[in-house]
């Protein structure tokens, strides 16, 4: 393993001179930061906390289901728990952790000093944070939402859900959606406009590529959700009848709008994970990605097809044979580009020299477990087969294999890969391996039995099941597996403590990786690149390796490594508190829907002040 002794950390003297106090500590510096790395850290920490909260909710669900006719939790609370578990995992844990990776990695991978709109980036984070906190406030004001993360009408109408829980759900997702869409725009523009010379589209690292594709998905998928949520808000608060069948509305309209968003959302959650492993596997195989253009375009194709398959969530709603046949066929098509990715990852490892660093273990774990989730996905792409599988634990098994075996494994792979870049410290590899194997075990012990319990007749979203159904053993095993997830977290936490107290310096490129984020010190200086790099190949660091250094020579000494001090002054965006003001304004306006028009108006006022302050803020 080649490491460099010339590692530098912190900011070069010239930058300090230019931007005195930019990286000063203290709360104010975090509240006003527009630095993509710091915003990435904020996203990571917040998303991780939500992951823990939603994880506890999942554990409670499993404890309740440990035995039949259990009376540990009452059904009202159970229904709140599975609603909040799903909603949190998707919107407030999965997506923010992915956006954390976008923030930390993308500018570094394309040779940029920040994202295209740094203040908008900060705004996205604050809005997400406030939306999450607002959603959880529901527990203290009359109960959390209990309509499921999918919030099907008419159960979520005022008539059948008169409390405020559903209002919290609708408003939190509307508020959070603003930040998400802003983030999508930001990364799209960043990747199109901010690439360093020579970073052509077909030279971009796969993670950046998948960020690009995901940003397009966000831009196209969130508007239908926003429209649906607005309809729901109007139905609940202003007595409109969009979803009211008795008055000429249609409850299926919500399902269409929700899943036109909801299915692409699945790819929003998985494609970045695919991007991460597409970067990690070559690094730890010491071999370039096999079939780069095919892997890129299969990702694009998955995203494209993802908009034409939403009805597979609705095969039992009675839309007729033609619709079911078309959407079933379209769903099956997605298996092809997904399979192509799997084969290209295996081909990348074939003939390589595989080093099983924890990042690599999680990447390989993704390949192995995503196959299971992918295959069960093909099983319910067949509409008649799905008539038995939909809304049962078989589907619960399927999407947890995809979301844990795919998204979470991908994110952990990225965590072990880029942690050292962000912090400058090395994690303990042994603890990382324990973390992987325990998580892998927990995943399979928890979710594999659910294939059986589902096919044997256990529907989803049920707070209990009858004793005579023969489901006792499967459910008990699942609960034991769920407790293993708790055990699996211990080595992760221990590893963070280890890195904090004893982790050795990482150096610029601890894994001998090939992409631009490994050319500067760890952690990177505020300005990322002292000199904007010029790139001449897909794996810029390895090309120089091939050309200029003999095998075994110190990689850190290669010419592409960034100088410690910028030769010319670097201009960086100034911190700003206006994004925070604007977000607070939107939060107050949102709260107004529950408390009264005056609060709405105050919120709008603060929002306008924030907008003006932002617009007229001097550039320096």
């Amino acid at each position, binding site marked *: 393993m080649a490491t460099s002794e010339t590692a530098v950390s912190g900011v070069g003297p010239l930058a300090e001179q230019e931007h005195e106090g930019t990286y000063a500590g203290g709360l104010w510096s975090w509240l006003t930061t527009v630095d993509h790395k710091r915003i990435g850290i904020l996203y990571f920490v917040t998303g991780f906390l939500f992951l823990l909260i939603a994880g506890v909710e999942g554990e409670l669900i499993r404890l309740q289901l440990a035995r039949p006719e259990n009376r540990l939790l009452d059904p009202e609370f159970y229904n709140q728990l599975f609603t909040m578990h799903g909603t949190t995992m998707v919107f407030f844990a999965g997506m923010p952790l992915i956006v954390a990776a976008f923030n930390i990695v993308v500018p570094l991978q394309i040779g940029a000093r920040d994202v295209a709109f740094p203040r908008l980036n900060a705004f996205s984070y604050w809005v997400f944070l406030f939306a999450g906190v607002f959603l959880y406030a529901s527990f203290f004001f009359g109960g959390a939402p209990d309509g499921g993360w999918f919030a099907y009408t008419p159960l979520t109408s005022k008539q059948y859900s008169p409390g405020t829980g559903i209002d919290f759900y609708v408003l939190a997702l509307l508020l959070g959606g603003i930040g998400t869409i802003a983030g999508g725009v930001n990364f799209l523009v960043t990747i199109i406009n901010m690439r360093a010379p020579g970073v052509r589209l077909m030279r971009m690292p796969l993670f950046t590529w998948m960020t690009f594709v995901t940003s397009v998905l966000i831009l196209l998928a969130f508007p239908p959700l926003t429209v649906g949520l607005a309809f729901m808000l109007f139905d609940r608060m202003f007595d409109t009848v969009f979803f009211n069948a008795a008055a000429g509305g249609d409850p299926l309209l919500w399902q269409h709008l929700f899943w036109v968003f909801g299915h692409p959302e699945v790819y929003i959650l998985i494609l970045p994970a695919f991007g991460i492993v597409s970067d990690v596997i070559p690094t730890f195989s010491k071999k370039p990605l096999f079939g780069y253009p095919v892997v890129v375009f299969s990702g694009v194709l998955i995203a494209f097809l993802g908009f034409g398959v939403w009805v597979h969530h609705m095969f039992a709603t009675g839309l007729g044979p033609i619709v079911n046949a078309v959407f079933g066929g379209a769903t099956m098509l997605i298996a092809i580009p997904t399979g192509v990715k799997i*084969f290209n990852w295996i081909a990348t490892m074939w003939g390589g020299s595989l080093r099983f660093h924890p990042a690599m273990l999680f990447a390989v774990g993704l390949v192995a477990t995503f196959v299971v989730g992918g295959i069960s996905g093909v099983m319910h792409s067949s509409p008649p087969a799905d008539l*038995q599988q939909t809304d049962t634990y078989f589907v619960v098994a399927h999407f947890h294999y995809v979301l844990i075996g795919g998204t979470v494994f991908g994110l952990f792979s990225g965590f072990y890969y880029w942690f050292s870049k962000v912090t400058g410290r090395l994690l303990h590899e042994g603890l990382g391996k324990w973390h992987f194997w325990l998580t892998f075990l927990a995943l399979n012990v928890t979710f594999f039995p659910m294939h059986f319990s589902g096919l044997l*007749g256990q529907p989803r979203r049920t707070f209990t099941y009858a004793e005579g159904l023969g489901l006792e053993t499967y459910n008990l095993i699942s609960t034991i597996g769920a407790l293993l997830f708790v055990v699996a977290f211990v080595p992760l936490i221990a590893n963070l403590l280890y890195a904090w107290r004893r982790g050795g310096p990482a150096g610029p490129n601890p894994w001998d990786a090939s992409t631009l984020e490994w050319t500067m010190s760890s952690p990177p200086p505020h300005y990322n690149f002292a000199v904007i790099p010029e790139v001449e190949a897909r794996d810029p660091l390895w090309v120089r390796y091939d050309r200029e250094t003999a095998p075994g020579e110190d990689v850190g000494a290669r010419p592409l490594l960034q100088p410690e001090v910028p030769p010319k002054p670097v201009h960086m965006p100034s911190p700003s508190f206006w994004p925070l003001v604007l977000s607070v304004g939107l939060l107050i306006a949102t709260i107004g829907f529950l408390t009264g028009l005056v609060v709405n108006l105050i919120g709008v006022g603060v929002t306008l002040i924030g907008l003006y302050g932002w617009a007229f803020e001097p550039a320096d």
Partner: protein
Amino acid sequence: MNDRKALVLTLVLGAAALQACGGDYPQSALHPQSDFATRLDELFRGIFWWAVGVFVVVEGILIATLFRYREKRRQERPKPIHGHTGLEIGWTLVPALILVAIAIPTVRTIFVVDRPPPEADLTVEVIGKQWWWEFQIPELDIVTANEVHVPVGRTVEFRVRSADVLHSFWVPRLGGKRDLVPGRENMLWFTADTAGVFWGQCAEYCGTSHALMSFRIIAAQEADFESWVARMQEPAVAPQEQMARLGAGVFMSNACVGCHRIEGTPAQGIVGPDLTHVGSRTTIAAGVLENTPENLARWIKTPQEIKPGNYMPYVALTDEQVDQLVAYLLSLK
């Protein structure tokens, strides 16, 4: 009276036999007992074996790769290989062909199961309500709840609709799911192969007690079905025993009468389940409890404890009154 007892006995024994031969999974999709469920199961089994094949091949190649190319000491840097067009075409085409092999039987099955049955011998109307099921057979003038009999070997069409929120009608051994959508009528049909008690359950989340919205479909041989129909078409029997007669009085003078219907009596409520023949049902509270005197008494005394959020209110009755009521209800065979 005697032939009714014989019927119940037959059903119980039939159910026991079924449990014995099909494992103890009364709600399993893997043990089909109708033409419809068998079609779904055959399709599923075909896809399942393709899936097993793909799983074994892909995981096998993966594990072999991981072992063969694990890092060794003093290894040369691996040769960079950027791709191979032939391989890319191969692993695009092979999965595509497998999918075609899955898609053809899929589409064939879709055009059978998503269409009305070739001919239906009997039509049952299913109305889902939070959290119980109403079954109507208009052609036979039958209204009942949470349990319906169907004849073996005859095609039964279920027209499903909802009175409130979304529900899904699912009796896995006989048919797949069909959602009950307000403002629409959906359809499902099957021909049961064998006599037996088949468990069903709501499969679309419908609120607080969604988990407690079960039902039973009892497939019976022709003669047994006919006698069930004849019995269901009669109005409620007048209570004979003293306890039951007192119970009828309790029923008619309390809130019960406002929500439940007992044909042939002044009780004509339509909010709750029809109780004209409640004594002959195998379960109460929509498949939640076995229909025993103890359970029925519990249900009357603590309906919210047994099924939280349901619309049956607590009615203040003395223990004696409850016992009388139970005697009356169970006499309604």
